[in-house]
């Protein structure tokens, strides 16, 4: 009975919402680790080494995270295709901006930009990390992470691409975060609180990531 929820349109929305909230939790954790690089090379190296070598993080949480990312994107594109088919022939004139925000109407676009960014991000950090540990099996070095990070942000082009991508992430979160709670069924007095938290979170976290990227670009 419970599994049959996910065969329905509401169930598919629920899966999008839950996977989105899961990614928001991961994003928060990722930010909290990255921001330490601004204040302390030692703390950043310590946390990165822990995350990169703890077997639970590596072999349990990491596969769950990768599955969550892939699932959220695949489901998003799948639902977009279904939704477009539901319209059939489109309108000749459609004044969507008169009754809904650009952000809410273009989640697939902002999500698509974030997906492209993730390819670059994986190429920059995840692929070399996997190569270091599991392909070339190089010796463990707990102090290499900070140097690798600042090396990446020496390039102003990469720093700019990261910054623009985070703006699209902010747009995606501005609608997606609070919307996911509505899908879960939250409709109480707490919803206003969720909306306010969504606004602060969606601006603060991406802005923080932009700050980290620009900080290392300017300081090194």
């Amino acid at each position: 009975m419970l599994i049959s929820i996910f065969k329905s349109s509401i169930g598919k929305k629920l899966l999008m919402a839950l996977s989105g909230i899961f990614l928001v939790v991961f994003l928060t954790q990722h930010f909290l680790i990255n921001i330490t690089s601004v204040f302390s090379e030692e703390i950043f190296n310590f946390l990165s080494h822990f995350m990169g070598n703890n077997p639970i993080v590596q072999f349990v949480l990491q596969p769950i995270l990768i599955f969550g990312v892939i699932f959220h994107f695949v489901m998003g594109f799948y639902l977009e295709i279904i939704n477009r088919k539901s319209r059939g022939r489109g309108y000749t004139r459609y004044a969507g901006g008169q009754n809904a925000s650009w952000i809410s109407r273009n989640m697939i676009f902002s999500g698509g930009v974030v997906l492209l960014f993730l390819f670059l991000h994986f190429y920059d950090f995840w692929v070399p990390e996997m190569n270091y540990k599991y392909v070339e099996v190089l010796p463990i070095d707990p102090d290499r992470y900070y140097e690798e990070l600042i090396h990446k942000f020496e390039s102003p082009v990469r720093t700019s691409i990261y910054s623009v991508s985070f703006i699209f992430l902010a747009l995606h979160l501005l609608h997606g975060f609070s919307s996911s709670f509505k899908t879960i069924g939250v409709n109480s007095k707490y919803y206003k609180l969720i909306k306010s938290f969504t606004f602060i979170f969606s601006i603060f976290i991406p802005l923080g990531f932009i700050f980290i990227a620009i900080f290392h670009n300017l300081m090194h």
Partner: protein
Amino acid sequence: MKLKLKIWRQENVDTKGGFTNYEIDDITPDMSFLEMLDVLNQRLINENIDPISFDHDCREGICGSCSLFINGRAHGPDKGITTCQLHMRKFKDGDSIVVEPFRAKSFPIIKDLVVDRSAFDRIQHSGGYISINTSGNTQDANTTPIRKEDADNAFDAATCIGCGACVATCKNASAMLYVSAKVSQFSYLPQGQVEAKERVLNMVKQMDEEGFGNCTNTGACEVECPKGISIKNIAKMNREFYKAKI
């Protein structure tokens, strides 16, 4: 007022439609949009041309019959109205107006601007009722106390006239505002609890079978709804759905 009209014409469900341009004058700002179409149709009849088919009935904003997507918006450029409540004073002399039918795969075009909204009827038939026998044993309303807030929410949901503007305006052609209103109007009240589970499960199932899209919470539906049905009802329906499944 003199206007340029670009109106969708389509012979029937099987033919491919297209836009036809018309110019019309002698329109006064006090006319309703439907009266303007009446004037155009009278001219077409006099010219022995097939008049434009469009839905209308009460012309008082009650029945939900009139549809039309006017200049990119369901029921035209105003909030909280049906097309029969749209007046020509909302347009300027010389304006170009594009008139299309409500477009959704679940609302096939019957002719010109008339669409088949019987998908809504089938959703309603699948669970939008209570089976309490009220003939001969009607209780006094005060014997079942209901919280004012619940009574208000149920009444607000019950004002849905099933016009389909929510589907027409939603970028996903989703019917969730309509279905959620029909679910909520009963789920807030004790009389609706008997069939609560079957109602929400059957109505959502029927909605999915009809091929409507998924809600992405853009909120466009509640803006265009002539009765101001809130998307809070969608969250309410989601909760009812999860409760029924679990």
